[in-house]
């Protein structure tokens, strides 16, 4: 077991790279360059604000799209193309396969985010002409975005283990949107009464809490993030991703492969 999971993970990473996923970085770079230059021309006093908001939102959205598009096929494609047969006839357990796939895609997203982060900081440097202390918080915002990726990847993988790519994409994307309003959903639930109240509260706590992982707004205004919050959010992301992966393992373990 000790080395099989990393091998599956690195093979998944290799697949993503050869699938020309990393080309999205070119689009991102173009976007960042364009934005910084434009903002530099229209000196409106909020250059930093715009660059951080735009840059981090782009990192987040690009990443979520990649996570969903690759994630939904991670298992279903292998079953469809029957490439899984020769893998599972080896001493590889089904759960190892799931975990390996997750780590591979998560790794791809981390690498992708790393390059994008460089782009954002370069743009920031261009408009600010110097490095500021507040830039450190941008790193925290990026870290939170990576935590979001962990959750969405695990969810896409979960859906991929039993559903077709199209349906998986719909479910994953819906959960992303709903999760972005998770705090409001809890508010709605608090205002409901009777059976609806319990039902809504349950749903509100089960839905991934993307709203609290989105600190782009506060970081753009130069506000910091409490250390305790960073710690709790990290724990939450890990625990939630683990939960989705357990679901994926339970389903995949039982599946009759076609």
């Amino acid at each position, binding site marked *: 077991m000790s080395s099989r999971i990393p091998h599956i993970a690195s093979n998944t990473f290799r697949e993503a790279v050869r699938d020309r996923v990393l080309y999205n970085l070119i689009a991102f770079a173009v976007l960042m360059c364009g934005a910084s230059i434009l903002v530099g021309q229209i000196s409106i006093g909020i250059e930093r604000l715009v660059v951080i908001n735009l840059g981090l939102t782009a990192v987040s959205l690009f990443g979520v799209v990649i996570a969903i598009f690759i994630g939904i096929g991670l298992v279903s494609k292998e079953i469809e193309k029957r490439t899984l047969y020769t893998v599972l006839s080896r001493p590889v357990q089904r759960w190892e396969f799931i975990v390996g796939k997750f780590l591979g895609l998560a790794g791809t997203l981390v690498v992708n985010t790393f390059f994008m982060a460089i782009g954002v900081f370069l743009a920031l440097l261009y408009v600010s002409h110097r490095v500021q202390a507040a830039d450190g918080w941008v790193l925290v915002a990026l870290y939170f975005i990576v935590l979001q990726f962990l959750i969405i990847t695990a969810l896409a993988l979960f859906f991929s283990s039993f559903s077709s790519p199209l349906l998986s994409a719909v479910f994953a994307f819906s959960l992303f949107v709903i999760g972005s309003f998770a705090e409001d959903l809890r508010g709605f639930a608090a205002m409901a009464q009777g059976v609806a109240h319990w039902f809504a509260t349950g749903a509100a*706590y*089960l839905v991934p809490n993307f709203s609290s992982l989105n600190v782009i707004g506060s970081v753009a205004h130069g506000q910091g993030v409490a250390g305790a919050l960073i710690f*709790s959010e990290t724990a939450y992301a890990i625990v939630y991703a683990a939960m989705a992966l*357990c679901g994926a393992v*339970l389903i995949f373990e039982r599946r009759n492969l076609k």
Partner: protein
Amino acid sequence: MKPSRQVTMVATTLLMVCMLTSVWLLRQVDRMRGAATLQEVLYISSPAALKRLSLGYNGLLADIYWTRAVQYFGSKHFAGAQHYDLLAPLLEITTALDPRLTVAYEFGANFLAPPPPNGAGMPERAIQLTEFGIRNNPAEWRLYYDLGFIYYTELKDYSHAADAFARGSQVPNAHPFLRVMAAQMAQHGGELRMAQMMWSTTYQSTEDRNVRANAATHLRALQVEQDVSNLESLVADYRAKTGRLPASFTDLQSAGLLREIPVDPFGHTYKLTADGRVEVRTPDDFPFLTKGTPPGYVAPPPRFLPSD
């Protein structure tokens, strides 16, 4: 040749544990974020910009901001806050996104106008908000009522209140009291009876639970004030008749001035003090009291009582 039992057990247990832990962590995070949430909410405080950003889903976004406004006010009110700075922007954004959301204007009239800790203490802004509502919903009688309500309760501006009620009474299907109140406002504006009529109308016509609870609280306070005034005038009558103060309500009964021992809206009897004043036994249950409280009494932060 079944799915591995070991894997199933471990995965199921881990799933349960993770689920419970994630809920617990969420509560921690909520507690930590608290105020930060709403400040973030208002980073885009220009309603016009928000409207564009919502990609046409104005209605949904309005509903979300409405929920946030109610949550904001509710949690702060519960904690007895003295500042409600974000209520006005929240309501303004809500109504900018969906000008037909009449509950938002009603909420503003009832909770934006009154002074803290019961409201944000911004009657002018409440008026602006309601006027905006009227411009966008000229056939909604309730908005004219809300406008008149603000003028009456917070600004004590009876002539503007009468104007608003008069305009409103001309709207088809308007509540019949609007006409009555328009007529009587000028002369009897300051009277208890007027206030009772106002709050009753609010209580009957609103669909918002918070507004109704608030109206009921006011009505109870008015009832107590009326009872206290009546009882104190009976005490004065007794004194005029017998030359001394009554020891208890039974004295008033035997003097033929009182038929039954009076009780407050919660069913407790009133207290007759040695110096002839009437007091309510549990003043904490009656926020907004101006009469019938013991001397030197300081009201605690008001809470909405649940039973309405």
